[in-house]
């Protein structure tokens, strides 16, 4: 194999797509050719760098609010009883291979206008039911995810993605996560005994981003989790998820969940002790939430008069880039 052959095949070699005999020939060449070894190493580094740059680009990450909304929207397309997908006119199947969109507007005959009125009334009633059901589904899904996160993060350390510090998660995903840096306090007193905070971080489970405080309480691990949620019901709900109890309640834009295998009364005592001032601080954080563009401007200002890295400004804030 010549140097030219190696250059032509290096991409496939690094990608693991070269056949066995060509791979062997290329490896033999690399043993004796420093330049080609460097070429292969450069390719490897370049690929890793591109992947790393995408992983670290904040602008490319999905917001938790969007993921929660997406989950709700998709769930609403499934008939609860059968699990079959509802195919309305506006969501008709699309042939992928040919990318042919088969959507057509529904014909409405003027002669049957009264039917449309009756349908509108039915629709209005269904929308009410739909929202109630959608909110319940979202709440249930949240409780399931919280229980899953407790098991896989607090108990088993088996998450696909390593947890990150709360401060970093607040910058990248949700400014309200900053509140969990100090709340609840490291030690919480309850009538049933004290709870001790053992870890604070942010983790991703099932596509949902949580702020996660792990506590030790009455010999068990307890997870206090905060996630984005549009539901605003403030009353506390207790759910049993397999062998775990999940207590959840909502503040504006967020849900707070406490998960453990402890008996419900013990967990309720801890949830009550932790609820204040956490709920009011989270609600306050959302009321004072600064718009992302303003935060970016503030970040840029903080850099002072020196060179500013604005390589990604074209995504979100072109006007800010121009202003610089």
């Amino acid at each position, binding site marked *: 194999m010549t140097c030219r052959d190696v250059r032509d095949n290096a991409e496939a070699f690094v990608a693991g797509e070269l056949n066995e005999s060509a791979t062997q020939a290329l490896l033999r060449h690399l043993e004796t050719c420093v330049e080609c070894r460097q070429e292969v190493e450069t390719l490897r580094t370049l690929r890793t760098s*591109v992947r790393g*740059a995408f992983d670290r680009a904040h*602008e490319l990450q*999905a917001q938790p609010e969007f993921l929660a909304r997406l989950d709700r929207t*998709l769930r609403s397309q499934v008939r609860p009883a059968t699990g079959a997908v509802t195919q309305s006119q506006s969501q008709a199947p699309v042939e992928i291979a040919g*990318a042919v969109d088969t959507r057509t507007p529904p014909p409405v005959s003027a002669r049957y206008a009264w039917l449309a009125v009756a349908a509108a009334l039915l629709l209005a009633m269904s929308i009410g039911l739909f929202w109630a059901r959608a909110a319940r589904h979202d709440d249930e899904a949240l409780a399931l995810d919280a229980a899953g996160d407790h098991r896989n993060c607090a108990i088993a350390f088996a998450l696909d993605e390593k947890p990150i510090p709360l401060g970093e998660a607040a910058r990248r995903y949700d400014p309200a996560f900053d509140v969990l840096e100090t709340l609840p306090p490291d030690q919480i007193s309850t009538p049933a005994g004290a709870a001790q905070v053992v870890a604070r971080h942010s983790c991703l489970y099932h596509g949902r981003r949580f702020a996660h405080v792990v506590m030790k309480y009455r010999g068990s691990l307890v997870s206090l989790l905060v996630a984005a949620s549009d539901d605003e019901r403030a009353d506390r709900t207790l759910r049993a998820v397999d062998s775990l109890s999940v207590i959840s309640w909502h503040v504006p834009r967020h849900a707070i969940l406490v998960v453990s295998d402890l008996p419900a009364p013990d967990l309720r005592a801890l949830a009550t002790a932790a609820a204040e001032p956490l709920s009011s601080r989270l609600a306050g954080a959302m009321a004072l939430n600064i718009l992302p563009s303003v935060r970016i401007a503030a970040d840029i200002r903080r850099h002072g008069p020196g*060179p500013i890295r604005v390589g990604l400004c074209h995504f979100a804030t072109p006007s800010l880039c121009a202003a610089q």
Partner: protein
Amino acid sequence: MWAAFEAEALPHAPRLFRLAMWAERNRAEAEDAVQETLTQALQLFDRYRPGTNCRAWLLTILQNVINNRRRARQRSPMVPDPDDRRAEGLPFVPPVPQHLTDEDILGALARLPQSVQDIIVLRDVEELSYKEIAASLAIPLGTVMSRLHRARSLLRAELGREPVHAREEHLDRS
């Protein structure tokens, strides 16, 4: 069916969003593209073969959605790909600078033609196999190889085009 979809497909939503965001450069457009993709995937989920690469299947749908949106906007008209030819005619590829920041890399990639960006992202970021890339972009396997070879050279040429610091100063002045 929802349970299987929720377990297999839904966890890939953040990765789908990342690719959509890169392609659309706009959060609202990217969110629409991901929602449209997963809506189609849910409706077609009985066609998905368990045990195969679900992410690659979803990326194929997403790529299609993005292409349709580009066509609809006529922002980036689909033309026969000019990169199918072999890369012999490429200019000299300068060495890749030693110290590159994420901004250098993403900036250089963003300046390349769309078809070049697509294939680099599917290979390097999404780590799809050549076969999966071929299905995703609806191009022959041989084209994947030649296009990737050319794309890599173009990216290296872009990275080595001018000193990194000179570009930073240029951006700083703009």
